[in-house]
């Protein structure tokens, strides 16, 4: 019990429930926005990559380089243009989702058996209709697996954005660091992990509903 009391000061939590909820909401909003924008940006990249192999390797290289740049450095590199704003955090986070989203979607679409595509064509489907009605549903598990990875990664990375003032629950962690007071640190970390797990489970369920024939792992 002594250990628990040292780490968790429940009265602090009770006094700061507004702050905690605000940070949590900010975390959810920023994560959702980053992944949503990531999907929007990734879609044309996937379509281009699907058609031209050379384009795919360019897309993979560029998003791979983005993915490799440490988050704090990427935030810092954007500062001269977008300053200490939400936009800076969002651009960097969107950048990190792209590699995961594009690679999973392209791999998923490429795994659709050629016979299936031919069957669709034989039934008179245009290539666009085949993509939307046949290939996309078949690739859905891979695509959603990518979205799940992107969400979990973004939830974690976002905490670092607290260093530029827009880090959601990361601010609680930073507060714990600056004051060497563990309670906000514990609250921020536990909520962040919980958020990642909940988002992951929800997306898995969505996948099962959208592609019930696949079972889903």
């Amino acid at each position, binding site marked *: 019990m002594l250990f628990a009391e040292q*780490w968790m000061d429940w009265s602090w939590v009770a006094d700061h429930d507004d702050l905690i909820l605000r940070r949590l909401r900010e975390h959810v909003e920023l994560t959702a926005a980053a992944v949503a924008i990531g999907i929007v940006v990734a879609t044309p990249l996937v379509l281009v990559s699907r058609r031209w192999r050379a384009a795919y390797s360019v897309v993979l290289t560029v998003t791979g380089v983005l993915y490799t740049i*440490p988050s704090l*450095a990427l935030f810092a590199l954007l500062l001269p243009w977008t300053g200490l704003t939400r936009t800076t955090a969002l651009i960097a986070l969107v950048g990190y989702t792209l590699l*995961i989203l594009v690679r999973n979607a392209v791999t998923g679409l490429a795994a659709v058996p050629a016979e299936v595509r031919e069957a669709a064509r034989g039934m008179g489907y245009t290539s666009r209709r085949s993509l939307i009605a046949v290939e996309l549903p078949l690739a859905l598990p891979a695509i959603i697996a990518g979205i799940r990875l992107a969400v979990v990664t973004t939830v974690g990375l976002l905490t670092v954005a607290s260093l530029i003032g827009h880090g959601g629950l990361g601010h609680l962690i930073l507060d714990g660091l600056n004051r060497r007071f563990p309670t906000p640190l514990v609250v921020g970390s536990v909520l962040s992990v919980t958020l990642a797990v909940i988002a992951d489970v929800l997306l898995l369920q969505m996948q099962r509903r959208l592609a019930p024939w696949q079972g889903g792992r």
Partner: protein
Amino acid sequence: MELLGDVVAWFDDRANWRGSSGLVHLLGEHVSLSLWAMLIACAVALPIGLTLGHLRRGEVVAVNIANIGRAVPSFAVLVFALQVMSIGREPALVALVLLAIPLVLTNAYVGVAGVADDQREAARGMGMTGWQLLRRVELPSSIPLVMAGIRTAAVQVVATATLGALVGAGGLGLLILRGLRTRDHVEVFAAALVVALLALVAEVLLGVAQRLLTPRGIRGDAARGGDPAI
């Protein structure tokens, strides 16, 4: 593009390279912190991952530990480490080791456990002992995956070592954090460039190492794909 000129001037100024908060010293701290973290993580994770993979035991733990690790922000782990240790290198080292272990372990497990049954049976049929099987068959065939895990972990360790400055471990993050505090955009930008380059260099070097270590017979297919852990 006034900024870029200032950044060039920053790099041109020798004072920014020397001393205890100069680029050379901080780069050294950054690299040595990352190297030690990877050495310790490999020393812990490789034997466990390879053994479990060889015995094909503990799959649930070995496979899921990387997923769990991903959900825990390394920033939080770093600050947690500071709560139980004093300011300096140790909390950063502990956090980086904890960050790297799951990635290395999961890939080592998946690599070894994924070796085809007929390959293992053939080796057994040739009279190999368990140890010989691991050393001569399972290890060589699993190198692409094992190395992919080490590479992914190393790149993340180099990235997260940037945050080490928050707990007094020094490294290149020091310049970024200092610049953020003093609103020195030029210093922030220049340091961020160096950090980004360092991460890219680590990625490329380990990619080359991965390719060179992969036995010739299985080069080409798995060696290119890289990080299944991501």
